């Protein structure tokens, strides 16, 4: 700093404006990353297209409105998205499917959850959103299995199996809270959804990752309450 210029609050030599700016920017980066529990800034390999993101946000909003105002629903609905937080930091997570293996009768989708979030938050609610493409009139049964891989990622265990009846093309939702909660508790990071249909149907989903009706999981999580150590 120019000779004789002092920091008014601490009496030390003031920093030059450039140095001060660099210090403040470094502090801002460190503060944001530590509050997000990220070791470093993420490197984004495949950003989600704006179309897919907007469709997902609209779909989630539409569901909240449906949930909040359905008859007999207590104010605020049962949807935890509307529930007030307890003052702990809350997160809303949108995880878009990664295509897995598929056959003429089945298709697999993978959903990854970052270790930082899995280790420091608890899942309040998680919903799987699927957009059905229906080949023709009538009702088509689909078996939806939730599979979890162990920490090695090699062995799969089935968390649940649900039969869904598909009558027309459009969005369908499935509550996957329990499966994602147990995923977080076990420290695993990948949820696999397997869809199986009757022989002559082919893939039940709209093809193409770029399509804005791509499947996703919307989860709401809350920072774990600080661990209280009781001293006796």
């Amino acid at each position, binding site marked *: 700093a120019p000779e004789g210029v002092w920091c*008014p*609050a601490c009496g030390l030599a003031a920093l030059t404006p450039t140095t001060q700016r660099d210090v*403040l*920017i470094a*502090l*801002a*980066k460190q*503060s*944001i990353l530590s*509050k*997000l529990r*990220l070791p470093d*800034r*993420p*490197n*984004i*390999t*495949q*950003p*989600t297209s704006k179309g897919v*993101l907007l469709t997902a946000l609209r779909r989630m909003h539409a569901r909240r409105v449906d949930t909040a105002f359905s008859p007999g629903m207590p104010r605020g609905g049962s949807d935890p998205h509307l529930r007030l937080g307890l003052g702990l*930091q*809350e*997160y*809303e*997570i*949108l*995880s*878009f499917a990664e295509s897995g293996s598929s056959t003429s009768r089945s298709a697999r989708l993978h959903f*990854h*959850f*970052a*270790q*930082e*979030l899995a280790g420091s938050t608890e899942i309040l609610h998680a919903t799987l959103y699927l957009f059905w493409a229906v080949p023709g009139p009538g009702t088509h049964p689909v078996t939806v299995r939730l599979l979890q891989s162990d920490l090695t990622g090699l062995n799969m265990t089935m968390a649940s199996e649900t039969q869904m009846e598909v009558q027309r093309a459009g969005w369908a939702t499935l509550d996957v809270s329990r499966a994602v909660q147990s995923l977080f508790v076990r420290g695993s*990071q990948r949820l696999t959804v397997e869809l199986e249909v009757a022989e002559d149907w082919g893939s039940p989903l709209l093809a193409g990752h770029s399509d804005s009706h791509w499947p996703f999981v919307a989860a709401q999580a809350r920072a774990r309450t600080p661990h209280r150590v009781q001293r006796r």
Partner: protein
Amino acid sequence: GIDCSGDSQMCCRQEFFVDFKEIGWEDWIIQPEGYHMNYCAGLCPLHMAGIPGLAASFHTAVANLIKANNADAAVDSCCVPTQRRPLSLLYYDRDSNIVKTDIPDMIVDACGCT
């Protein structure tokens, strides 16, 4: 609270905006475009203790305490945030999931003397 301007020496709030594009973070932070990392700076001499307190009476109470205890040797007090709000972020995590969260107490709206 008072915003710092020019070469004010007294306790005030210094605005400081970090533009995420300037630091190359705009690819993983979707919203907002930057972070108002304001901070408190300046002097808190004795007669300013408790200014601007949460209520005018707070400052009077502090001033009376100082007189009553004849604390003329008291040191200056500290220039600290008196009002803060959360920073709402929409960002990509390491698996390219999209996360929205509000980080509490990240933005300083006002400063004052303890």
